[in-house]
């Protein structure tokens, strides 16, 4: 008589070696297929899609295969008068895509392609009275990632950091985790954002690292994969959100690394390249980035070291002299 644990079963013939070349080919070719409807539909998040693709290519040492100038020109065309950046041309600016654009330009060491002061002003304008940040000027509340952009520009003093910290801490729950808003259920994705935020603002001491670390390592299921909250299926992107959070709070050794690695590898598609959310599903660039980044955090030496706070190669951050705190 077993307990009903919600989990997946990894088939014996699932991939067990890392197929980096296949993943590089997959990303390099993504978006160039003429009849790709999925690519069309995801236009509303194009900027983030580019960030995912470029970051994983850089982690694999394959960034030169992407077209740097075209991408920089694209980003320039997406900066609006207010300073904010949109997902694609003709879309409205939004905090999420502003962040992605800044991250891309860091990869290319070309942040000056933007009107930096305007971006800073845009982000500052999105901060609400309660300390949180709206995603766009019409108030759709969103994840607190503006801090990254401000930090990159060295302009943290333009936002009300204390209020923002207050807001984030108000999202801490009875189980040690964080939700999207005060009272919302603890969720690994949100925990990642909050841990990253507290790292960037030098406030990691406010986290109950043992309690949160316990909640996070409880995400690991018998298959080795990680879920995002209790009684949910494992998903390779949680290999990133959970793992990076554990790294930030200094408790990554509480995960069974070998089992997690074998789960992540099983999510590869041997034919097409790329990673899916779980073994056997369809691949996409989002899960490909987080699969590779997760493996990097686990210590795979074929992949460049990745920064757990910003999900960018460490060497990029060293170049711009940005080294967020981690707990030991």
């Amino acid at each position, binding site marked *: *008589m077993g307990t009903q644990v919600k989990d997946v079963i990894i088939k014996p013939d699932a991939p067990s070696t890392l197929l980096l070349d296949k993943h590089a080919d997959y990303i390099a070719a993504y978006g160039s297929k*003429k009849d790709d409807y999925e690519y069309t539909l995801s236009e509303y998040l194009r900027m983030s899609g580019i960030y995912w693709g470029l970051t994983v290519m850089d982690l694999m040492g394959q960034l030169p295969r992407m*077209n740097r100038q075209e991408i920089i020109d694209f980003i320039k065309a997406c900066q609006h008068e207010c300073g904010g950046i949109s997902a694609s*041309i*003709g*879309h409205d600016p939004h905090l999420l895509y502003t962040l992605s654009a800044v991250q891309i330009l860091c990869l290319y060491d070309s942040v000056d392609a933007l009107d930096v002061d305007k971006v800073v002003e845009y982000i500052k304008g999105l901060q609400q009275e309660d300390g949180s940040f709206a995603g*766009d000027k019409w108030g759709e509340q969103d994840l607190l990632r503006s801090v990254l952009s401000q930090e990159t520009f060295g302009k943290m003093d333009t936002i009300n950091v204390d209020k923002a910290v207050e807001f984030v801490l108000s999202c801490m729950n009875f*189980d040690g985790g964080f939700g999207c808003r005060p009272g*919302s259920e603890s969720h690994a994705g949100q925990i990642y954002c909050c841990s990253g935020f507290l790292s960037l603002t030098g406030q990691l001491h406010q986290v109950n690292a043992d309690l949160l670390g316990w909640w996070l390592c409880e995400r690991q299921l018998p298959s080795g994969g990680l879920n995002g909250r209790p009684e949910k299926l494992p998903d390779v992107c949680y290999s990133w959100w959970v793992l990076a959070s554990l790294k930030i709070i200094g408790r990554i050794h509480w995960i069974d690394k070998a089992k997690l690695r074998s789960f992540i590898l099983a999510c590869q598609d041997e034919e097409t390249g790329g990673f899916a959310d779980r073994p056997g599903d369809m691949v996409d660039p989002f899960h490909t980035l987080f699969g590779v980044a997760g493996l990097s955090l686990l210590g795979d030496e074929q992949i460049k070291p990745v920064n757990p706070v910003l999900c960018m190669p460490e060497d990029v951050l060293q170049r711009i002299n940005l080294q967020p705190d981690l707990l030991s």
Partner: protein
Amino acid sequence: NKYNTRFISTDKIPPVFLCFRDRKEWADLEPVPQDDGPNPVVKIAYSEKFSDVYDYFRALLKNDERSERAFALTSEAIELNAANYTVWHYRRVLLQALSKDLREEMRYITAIIEEQPKNYQVWHHRRMVVEWLNDPSEELEFIADILSQDAKNYHAWQHRQWVIQEYKLWDDELDFVENLLEEDVRNNSAWNQRHFVISHTSGFSDAMEREIQYCLYQIKKAPNNESAWNYLKGILQPLGLSAQPGLLERVLELKQTHCSPYLLAFLFDCYEDALENSKENVAEEEQQKTLKKALEICQLLAQEDTIRKEYWLFLGRSLKNKHGSSDPSDEPLADDPEPSVPVSEQQEMS
């Protein structure tokens, strides 16, 4: 409404989508093709209908046209891609500018959420319209319906929490939560909601005994339930686990028949709390007995819950460092436990 005409049909030819570029009433508008920038990143091929609709959407946006036909077109654009936040924003502008019937809009929103319950934009849109109407009367029932299809939908729960807090609709929520937990005692979202309701209404001091009983009752039904144990620990933590009279004994009793890694972890937490908050008159010997029991639990868990072996060893080491006596005859805590015993599955009470 001629602007809603999407299909032409005759007796013999099946209905086809009539492109906007072929519709007489749209002839005055110059469609704006997709601009992928001076050097397009990639060549994109869109389906014909998609490009037609969005070409006309961009034209309307460019002219800031506020008309019925624009409003109708936003519906088409949303149907093709409900995640396009620019379209939703424009739709809101039109709802106001044209003084559209907001109740009809609510019906529209309901239909979209039913089809795409995890779409961020449509939930945000719903919240905006509820605010404009200042009428939450349909919300709890609607959200309950969405939750009946996916009891953990994060957007649904977030919207529910907003509605309840904003309009003070607390009265029946605890009953609602209990019904959900009857259906699925492992629903972590429902446990979270329980905490949300109680902390905003009665608070936990008077309710504590009732809540403990509730947890233990649910645990007996399903011992391996992370949510129930997290909740129990969460509500007791502020006062301290060892401050609750009789709790330890109840858990020890439960251990006989409904043991689980969670129960053992909870026991450990009780012992740890006792050590941290021991009264002046507790003898050193008593302390060391408690410590020993706690360390035994760590060893057991390191063997039973092997995937978290490092965590259990860490817990044991930390506790020993903090509260261990200076007695040299104490056995050191082994870093490598015995070869792991296969995890024995716990039997569920049916």
